[in-house]
């Protein structure tokens, strides 16, 4: 009785296995006659989603000034240390980058810099294919990185919120009271 059962078990197993094999052969066979889904890349460039992590840019605030305040957060967040900069005080009192450099030969496009950027200056764009003959040409300086638009969030203006008197007097930033009058007679 047991043997018989065993035999049916073995037979079933073999049949199941064969069916499984046949199934996979059938699946690939049907694929053979499907239209390929491949897109012919250089001829057809697929529009990339806005949040694709490609080449990095430095954007500008709505007033056309540089957004980057050279706070060193992106270079601090960068896992491959491909960002370096030097901050300085600009003529309008705003903190800005004296120079700003990204080594794209080293960049891994992880997007941590963009997440770290508190002023939305540094943004990754969908542009992913930019090739160079010499590896030094992948070192982008501030002038190469700086664009004249606001990127993904064109309305944000860090210096409208910051509360530091750089071009915009104290108390005139968004959500701020007038400066305290230390000599006020009000109790």
């Amino acid at each position, binding site marked *: 009785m047991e043997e018989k059962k065993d035999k049916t078990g073995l037979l079933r197993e073999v049949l199941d296995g064969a069916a499984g094999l046949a199934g996979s052969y059938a699946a690939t066979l049907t694929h053979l006659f499907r239209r390929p889904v491949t897109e012919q890349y250089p001829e057809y460039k697929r529009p990339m989603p806005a949040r694709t992590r490609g080449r990095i840019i430095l954007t500008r605030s709505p007033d056309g000034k540089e957004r980057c305040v050279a*706070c060193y957060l992106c270079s601090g967040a960068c896992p491959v240390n491909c960002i370096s900069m030097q901050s300085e005080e600009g003529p309008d009192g705003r903190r800005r980058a004296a120079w700003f450099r990204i080594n794209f030969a080293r960049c891994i496009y992880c997007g941590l810099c963009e997440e770290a950027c508190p002023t939305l200056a540094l943004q990754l764009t969908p542009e992913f294919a930019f090739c160079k003959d010499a590896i*030094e040409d992948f070192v982008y300086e501030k002038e190469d990185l700086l664009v004249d638009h606001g990127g993904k969030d064109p309305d944000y203006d860090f210096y409208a919120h*910051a*509360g530091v*008197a750089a071009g915009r007097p*104290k108390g005139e930033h968004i959500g701020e*009271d007038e400066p305290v009058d230390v000599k006020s007679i009000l109790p």
Partner: protein
Amino acid sequence: MPDLIIDGRPVRVPKGTPVIAAAESLGIVIPRFCWHPALGAAGACRMCAVMFLDGPVKGLEMSCMVPAADGMVVETFHPEAVTFRRRVVELLMANHPHDCPVCDEGGHCLLQDETISGGHALRRFPGRKRTYLDQDLGPFIQHEMNRCIHCYRCARFYQEYCGYLDFGPMQNANRVYFGRFASGPLESPFSGNLADICPTGTLTDKPGRYKSRRWDCQRAPSVCPHCSLGCATVALSRYREVVRVEARENPAVNGHFICDRGRYSFGYAASAERPRQARADGVPTSMSTALALAGTRLGGVVEAFGPEAVAVVGSARSSLETQTALTALARAGGWRGPAFFADRTEQQAVAAALAALAGGRARSLAEIGQADAVLCLGVSPLHDAPMLALSLRQAARAGAVVAVADPRPATLPLPFTHLPLAPDKLPGAAALLTGAEAADAAAIQRALPLSPELWPALERLAPAFAAAGNPVLVFAPALAAQAPADARFGLFPVLCGPNAAGAALVADADAPACDDLARAIEAGEVKGLVLAEADAAALSPRLAAALPGLETLVVLDHLPTPSFAAAKVFLPTQTLFESGGTLCNNEARLQYAAPVAPPGEPVSRDGRGGHPPRDYARKLPGTDPLPAAALCAVLALEMGLDMPALSFAAFTGVGPEDVAPEGTRATRLPAAPTAPAPPSAPPGQGLVVVRDDALFATDAYGRYAPLARAQAPAASVVRLHPDDAAGLGLADGEALTVTVGDRRIEATLAVSAAVARGAAVVPRLPGWAGLPAAIGPETLRRRQP
């Protein structure tokens, strides 16, 4: 000694310790903004709330305000305490601006740490933010009041701890403002510490503004080389440039703070004028060529005139490593020297001052803060050793009697008695105050017959010193002979350079001084000279004048001194920031300064657009300099000399790895030499020349630091007592011409009763070094318009 339990761990602390400090001794850091170990508790920020589960206090309390008591059971992460602290942060953040990216405190900001670690991310409070207008607080401190969280640390430090009253709180309630009456530079010479103690970005370091984030800096423990106290510092460097110097806690020396001279005089290391290239006969050349040339030239002198014709000069600003290497080099070659001091008297004085410390009589800065009577003899604390003033202030706050017997006008942020006495009168005053018996009025009048205005003060001071249980004598080495035999008195010499004590430890008892070498050069006995991190002009004008008589002058230095300009062969050396080194401070405490900045021209100035190179093929510019000690060794090699260097253990009895965090006191002090004769009245008529340090730019390094030089007073000032001014027919504020040797210096006259009779106080600057010991009307003349 209360026993308590914090977070399940038992701890025993001294009575009176607040719970927050008890927790810190266990390594549990309770969040805090207003509490500071040096300033104590204010209870202003409410951040250090912890839960007291058992003991004399129960419930949620501020751990800084509650002294540890027996039986306390404290939980720092009790949910109620955590919630409370989270709400405190939320309240503080309700008005805090949204400007961390442009704030220099970002990266080492207590408020930022607590906000982020506490999880506060969204401002729920819909109201508007309070703002303030800022003030210009001078060149050192940047003011940004919006960021203030009203912890009162700055005001407590500035007013209570330091005793300066031009900066503090104003207004009330939600409008409290920390600032000055009107914009203007802060008066305190300790103002730089405000940037360190401010827990947020309200007061930040202005010279380091926008330079870098803390995490991008290389940091290393260092030792301040700007006076003889050897305060502990931390140097921060980025891109081959020291960008900031901060206080490091050394409980035995400086506590938590340093003075502005120590904080802002670091610029000499990266200054544009710093010589970084070897020179042969004034022409830039390679290091190896210059070394070979130095070897050949010195070898030539030895061959022609014998080894005695070569002399070595070191200085009190070199590290112990350099000093020992120099000594070994001189011994190996059989050369003269090294000379570390201007003249034999000074050398003996420093040795005698150190010798007097034997027998446990040395006091540290921290111990001065606990003394009950302090006499500064020939020392003007704020200028000779600024941090001494802060320690005196702490002593005075605890009720100590402080007296300063010094010919120079003294200002101190504490109640003290100034005894303006000419140098030759100081021993007498010291004898009156440090004698075993309280001096009586008659003795005082006998000792100082010409200073009746000081009699009442002395009559008041004498019994106070006689009754003091823990008095300290702070003295200049020239007055080492006045160290009282009375063992009650602790001793605290103030020396002439950051490593003057090291020089005295290293130097042979019969080593020549600079003046001896100058004499030998004039006599034609010495033909070759090695100046190692020493400026002949600043050390001894006579030596500087003798330099042209040499056949060979080899200079090792990193400062653009006049000697560098005169060098036949110049070898660039590394600074303390680059090579590291051991310094021995005034109380013979050896401390190691670790290297922090890589050698080389700062990236900001290496001629490639101010940023690091894109290609790394080329050699870094300005990386020629080597540690002076290493240069000595190479020079010995070039000349075939066998040069064994002294070991660290020779001075301390322990190896460098066993050095205590506070430094290690030298165990081998100079044997008591014949104490130098006390200063006596100069022969002939005239005013005794007394040199005065300014806070900035008068020390050997500060002179070459651009930032410090910018703080130096524009005009040189000569100070006289009104009687002496009248005797010379000069009036306050008059323009003077001072004749120094064959040069004329322009200066203005300041007349003050705080200057000793018979003394002329002149600035300690290299140009003034040639003045004779006493000057008269032929030297001080009204400037002809």
